[in-house]
């Protein structure tokens, strides 16, 4: 018990406390000025906004992928199942380079998209794509065991009671999966907010347009403006914490409607 707490403190709490202490070197006014600068605000907006959008896309697409992986037997299912883990396993920089090559104006996907007038690489859309890429396994892996546990008989029961397919999905399947879906959403979101490696290659990193908050922190650090960097970091931390907390409450609420068996 004592050991676990000590370990947790050393690993997590002390660095976080250090972060707050460092930011205290700034006067409240300085702190505010850093945060309210246009560049900081834009970076935060890009990070959180795109991360949330990407998490939502992952929620929908991830659910569909999980459904296919759990409910259907098709050749190559195991391979697809393994592929889901690739974004977990791949070094983020490798992922970033690969995505950039793919979506660059001469890339395999970038070229046809460019022909349609859609530019992905070096724009916010690129950030969005990278965030979807790294977030998908979180949704799939949290929902998968719950769906596997969900007895197909309950769908048959709903059907024989007169429910249409759509009613079965809305009233029976989704509510049963809700806690897992929310957890997956929260994890994918948290990961996307903090993502650095795979994003910076594809982002183009234009200040105010496609510059993510973690990158801005790195830039400030390289300019030796440590306090500035920590101020942004503290805000990211607090906002992330609030969002995770909110999702957690939501998840609790959903969970309370399905008491443990």
């Amino acid at each position: 018990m004592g050991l676990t707490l000590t370990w947790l403190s050393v690993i997590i709490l002390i660095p976080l406390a250090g972060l707050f202490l460092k930011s205290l070197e700034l006067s409240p006014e300085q702190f505010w000025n850093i945060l309210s600068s246009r560049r900081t605000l834009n970076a935060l907006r890009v990070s959180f906004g795109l991360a949330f959008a990407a998490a939502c896309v992952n929620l929908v697409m991830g659910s569909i992928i999980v459904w296919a992986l759990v409910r259907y037997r098709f050749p190559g299912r195991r391979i697809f199942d393994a592929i889901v883990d690739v974004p977990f396993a791949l070094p983020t920089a490798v992922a970033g380079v690969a995505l950039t090559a793919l979506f660059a104006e001469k890339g395999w996907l970038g070229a046809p998209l460019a022909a349609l007038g859609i530019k992905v690489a070096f724009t916010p859309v690129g950030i969005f794509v990278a965030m979807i890429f790294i977030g998908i396994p979180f949704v799939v892996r949290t929902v998968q065991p719950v769906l596997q546990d969900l007895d197909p008989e309950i769908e048959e029961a709903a059907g024989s009671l007169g429910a249409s397919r759509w009613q079965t999905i809305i009233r029976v399947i989704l509510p049963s999966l809700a806690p897992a879906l929310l957890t997956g959403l929260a994890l994918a979101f948290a990961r996307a907010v903090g993502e650095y490696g795979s994003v910076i290659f594809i982002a183009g990193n234009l200040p105010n347009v496609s510059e993510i908050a973690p990158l801005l922190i790195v830039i400030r650090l390289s300019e030796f403006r440590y306090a500035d960097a920590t101020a942004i970091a503290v805000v990211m931390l607090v906002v992330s914490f609030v969002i995770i907390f909110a999702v957690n409450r939501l998840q609790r609420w959903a969970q309370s409607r399905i008491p443990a068996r």
Partner: protein
Amino acid sequence: MTIEVKNLVKKFGSFAALDGVDLKVDNGELLALLGPSGSGKTTLLRIIAGLDWPDSGEVSFNGEDALAQGARERHVGFVFQHYALFRHMTVFENVAFGLRVQPRAVRKDEATIRARVKELLDLVQLDWLADRYPSQLSGGQRQRIALARALAIEPRILLLDEPFGALDAKVRKELRKWLRSLHHEINVTSIFVTHDQEEALEVANRVVVMDKGRIEQIGSPDDVYETPATAFVHGFIGESIELPVQVEGGVIRLGDHPLRLAADGLAPGASKLFVRRHDMLVGPPGSGAFEGAVQHVRNFGPVQRAEVALSGGQTIEIDAPRGRELRAGDTIGLEPRRYRIFAGT
């Protein structure tokens, strides 16, 4: 509602789950499908419910083709072995589900739905559990809720798939009685699947015995017990002694040993002799058709179960009444009070 099934065939790969099944169920009947696992009874039930589709054959309700309809349109109440309750809904909402998903045009208003659910919960005697979640109920309670949920849609037919299979012995016994009286009360044509002969014989008006995708016998509980139609039925229902015999020139032989049993009207050839354990009467040596040595004896309440090595070499178990106590080492004569012989091996 009458149900008629004609020449139903269903294959899973090369395995024939149903191999030409014909069955007629009368209005208001409580019918049991009895058979070992893999005999096709659950497949038959699922096809009637519309949860599975046959490769060929017909299913009709009141003469109307049921296969033209999906499970949703058939208005069939289905109760699953593992209840299949919606675990994120309260007991009340589970029972109300079938009423809430009705098309808007025929959906009842909230007050009517509440009254109906209350009525059903009263019927299954669990109205005090309305606000609980399924996970907070015992197995027997869950199954009764599942039944109430199935009844909510006023089904034309009630189908139950091993309804008591996951419950312990005592609860099973209670629920059997309860199901019979419930059926008496609501009088919906009902079919239940079971592998438990006692359950089938105790609850049903008629029993359908199945094996390997075929119906072996259809009859009242007395019929299938007293006059089994096939060797399988005799072996499956009740505890039987089964001996391989040879019928030749009006004589029945067990090994080389001719038995003093009438062989009138039996086809010659290899056959099987069936005797109920309690139909073997014990007498002094040389008195009956068989002779054997008692190996050991155990007492089960009113009967003593003895393992007897017959002079032909086979070992059988008999149930003899208490009173004339048997002891290991005794040599006894055995006379079957009733027996049946089926041709074939």
